[in-house]
């Protein structure tokens, strides 16, 4: 069925305006970064910066370290996620729902916050090692150097693999596995040859996401004081040597290339294979019973993982409620003073987060809603470009965009004497809205696909004009999706740290995430930092809960006939 598409001149103007916005605040800064990396002082093309980069041994080391950390994190996250996903999707046991829910827990806490908490528990003088030293005379150096980052990032990001893999496993028709058993395969062979390859699209999607996130992460290495990696090097170069230093831009280009390669690779991989046959409306695989020792093993594994996953949350909570916790197994003196501190000292930061993230999320659903309408409901030539531009934002590391902003907009003054753009609160709103636009757009697209065009045609049929139809019919019916998009954009922006560190020019402009980062720089700041983290985590957790509720209740009454 084809419906009459609606190419109103006003919509074309909006499409052009959005494209302009994305070119100025997304493509422009990235091109500036790439341009700077490839040009000499006079604007001529050169590869000398890359050669210079390759000649600095610290840079070569950082590059290798970043690859190593990202690769190892994917490895360990896989080791954790595969058994959890397989156990919960294929075996009967109590607590499967609990695992799937608790698996999301790490995501509500920014990785660098978890890093601070894990330092206290597993660090050289953390609780675990203190106990080990006192009783057994040895310690585990899990938080030292690169392994500390791998440890923190693994615990933080394994849910991406768990969730994607579980979703993939759920769609595999039970007959696919039964056919394997029928032909004589079982256990490990069946998993390796049939089950895992069929779930591979989900695994690859999750694993490539983890790789990019870890490769680009700035907050965790900084909090753990590890600087011989690419992202911290770029940051240090730009902040210490200056915005003119070309090496920082070379690093940015490398980060961008890896992000694009990982995303394109996973997309190509899934596209290449025909998985349409996998789920043909058959039954889901029946859940098997575990034998006695299998049950014990499974519960042991899950309990261990859960303890690890919950430890940063618990650590943060304890840190926020007790006097300085250092060189002791458990903190000793209960206090609420940290909360009192942040509500006097950091009130501005909490307010800043609400202001920046609220505005950014609002911009996101307006732009996202408009793009969704233009892409799905009109035939404006080149409308897909808007969609692709937004996808670019998904692949861009925050660090790169932050550096791009500083470079591209240096010296640009805001009107009415409000000062430099890069030194104002406006830059946060723009940066957050551009980076989080993909989340809002996805939500808006999903919501609009659910609204059958006949509902709009019915309104037009009884005499409502285009704008009236959009205002009275389309927007109300998309409301669930718009709200979910708003919340997702808001909470992910609130947890953002890479761009934030770069763009914070003075403390009075800083949002909460920067405040937490700043507090964790000093021993005395840990208490208030933890308290501020608890506030941030509560906001994010509440937002996540609201999104789930909205997603569950948003759309059932809106379907009319078949979706087009």
């Amino acid at each position, binding site marked *: 069925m084809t419906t009459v598409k609606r190419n109103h001149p006003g919509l074309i103007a909006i499409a052009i305006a959005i494209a302009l916005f994305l070119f100025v605040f997304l493509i422009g800064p990235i091109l500036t970064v790439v341009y700077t990396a490839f040009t000499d002082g006079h604007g001529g093309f050169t590869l000398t910066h890359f050669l210079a980069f390759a000649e600095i041994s610290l840079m070569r080391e950082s590059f290798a370290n970043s690859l190593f950390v990202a690769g190892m994190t994917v490895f360990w996250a896989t080791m954790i996620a595969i058994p959890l996903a397989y156990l919960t999707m294929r075996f009967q046991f109590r607590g499967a729902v609990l695992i799937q829910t608790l698996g999301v827990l790490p995501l509500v806490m920014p990785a660098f916050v978890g890093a601070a908490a894990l330092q206290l528990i597993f660090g050289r003088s953390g609780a675990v090692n203190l106990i080990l030293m006192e009783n057994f005379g040895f310690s585990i150096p899990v938080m030292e150097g690169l392994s500390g980052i791998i440890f923190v990032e693994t615990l933080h990001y394994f849910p991406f693999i768990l969730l994607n893999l579980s979703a993939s496993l759920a769609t595999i*028709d039970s*007959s*696919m596995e*039964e*056919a*394997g*058993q*029928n*032909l*004589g*395969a*079982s256990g490990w*062979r*069946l998993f390796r*040859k*049939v089950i895992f*390859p*069929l779930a*591979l699209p989900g695994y690859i999607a999750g694993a490539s996401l983890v790789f990019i996130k870890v490769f680009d992460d700035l907050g965790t290495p900084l909090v753990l004081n590890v600087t011989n990696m690419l992202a911290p090097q770029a940051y240090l170069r730009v902040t210490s040597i200056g915005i003119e230093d070309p090496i920082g831009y070379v690093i940015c280009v490398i980060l961008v290339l890896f992000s694009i390669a990982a995303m394109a690779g996973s997309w190509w991989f899934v596209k290449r*294979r*025909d*998985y*349409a*046959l*996998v789920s*043909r409306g*058959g039954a889901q695989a029946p859940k098997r019973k575990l034998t006695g020792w299998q049950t014990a093993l499974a519960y042991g594994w899950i309990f261990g993982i859960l303890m690890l996953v919950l430890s940063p949350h618990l650590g943060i909570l304890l840190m926020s409620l007790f006097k300085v916790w250092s060189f002791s197994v458990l903190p000793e003196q209960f206090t609420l003073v940290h909360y009192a501190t942040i509500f006097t000292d950091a009130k501005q930061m909490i307010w800043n987060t609400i202001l920046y993230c609220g505005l950014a999320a609002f911009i996101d659903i307006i732009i996202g809603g408009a793009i969704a309408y233009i892409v799905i409901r009109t035939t404006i030539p080149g409308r897909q470009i808007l969609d692709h531009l937004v996808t670019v934002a998904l692949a861009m590391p925050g660090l790169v965009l932050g550096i791009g902003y500083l470079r591209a907009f240096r010296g640009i003054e805001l009107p009415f004497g409000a000062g430099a753009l890069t030194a104002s609160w406006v830059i946060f709103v723009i940066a957050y809205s551009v980076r989080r636009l993909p989340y809002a757009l996805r939500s808006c697209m999903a919501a609009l696909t659910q609204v059958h065009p006949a509902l709009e045609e019915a309104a037009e049929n009884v005499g409502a004009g285009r704008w009236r139809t959009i205002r009275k019919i389309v927007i109300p019916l998309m409301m669930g999706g718009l709200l979910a998009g708003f919340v997702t954009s808001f909470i992910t922006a609130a947890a953002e740290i890479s761009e934030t560190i770069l763009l914070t020019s003075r403390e009075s402009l800083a949002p909460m995430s920067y405040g937490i980062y700043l507090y964790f720089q000093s021993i005395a700041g840990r208490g208030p930092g933890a308290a501020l983290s608890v506030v941030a985590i509560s906001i994010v957790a509440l937002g996540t809960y609201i999104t789930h509720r909205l997603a569950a209740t948003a759309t059932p009454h809106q379907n009319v006939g078949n979706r087009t």
Partner: protein
Amino acid sequence: MKSVGIEIKNIALSFGSTAVLKDITLSIQPGEFFALLGPSGSGKSTLLRLIAGFNQHQRGELLIDGKDVTGTQPWLRNVGMVFQNYALWPHMTVAQNVAFGLEARKLPSAEIRTKVASALELVDMGELANRRPGQLSGGQQQRVAIARTLAIEPQVLLLDEPLSNLDAKLRTQTRQELVLLQRRLGITTIFVTHDQEEALTTCHRIAVMDQGVIQQVGSPMDLFDFPVNRFVAQFVGSVNLFAGRFITEGDHLRFDSPTLGMLTLPKGLELQSTDMDLAFRPHAVRFVENPDTDLHHNLALNGEIVDSEFLGEFIRYEVRVGQAMVKADIPHARGVTPLQIGVQIHLRIPSQELRFVTA
């Protein structure tokens, strides 16, 4: 290939509190092409999956080639199953799919190659060995699924509604190919279907199942000609069925039906029990013009035509007899005009076509 028999003895299976199979006893001969026929929910697929090892019975014994396989895991049974949706693995080529079972048995790779080639040759798919399942038509996918199963040289071949995903024309052709293949290999085969035509045309013997119970086992003709109960009579072919009570009066047998009224049955019929239904097939009915024609050795009924459907080979009339409706299939010849609605008619059913079935 040695053909093996299957013995199913008093098998019972329930999922939770729902009894799905109730005291099933069956004996399938070596080399037999056997069908499990029944409506959805009758337990036929559950029984098939039980033989493959995907379901476990709580009571009874399952013997394959004389050995009790109760509790043996599916992957240790050597019972080949072709799934309804074929279950071909999309990440493997046709040849890799077929080789899978042989690799699981750790055969040398040269032997695997030979066996894969001959299995694909068997179903005429040798040329598409390097395709992926997604590049094949439904019929080709089914051939690959059969080749994959036969490659492991299973003791028994299980077919779960193998024709249901094919279009009507391909279904008839595939049906014939399946029969030829089975006759050639002589492999004991169990075929699950809800389609009576499929079962009647392909199988040596059929077990009709309903509500977890085997209603009747027999050759296709046995089931059609001598259904034991109301369910089998209705499920295999179409039938006229009347509830009532049999009364013996001297040397006459009479049938007292609430809808047909009191009937006098032709002589020579024997009755096992008084509580049985009277049954006859629509094609056994003849129309006669004269009320005195053929009263001996026939059941005689009088009725009025209320509807007719032209089906090509015959015309199906709905005739009202008393308060009952009787279906009558009258062969059609060129140029014959059907009887008009409202015409009074005399029906004759030969006594050898009358059946008594339990309710």
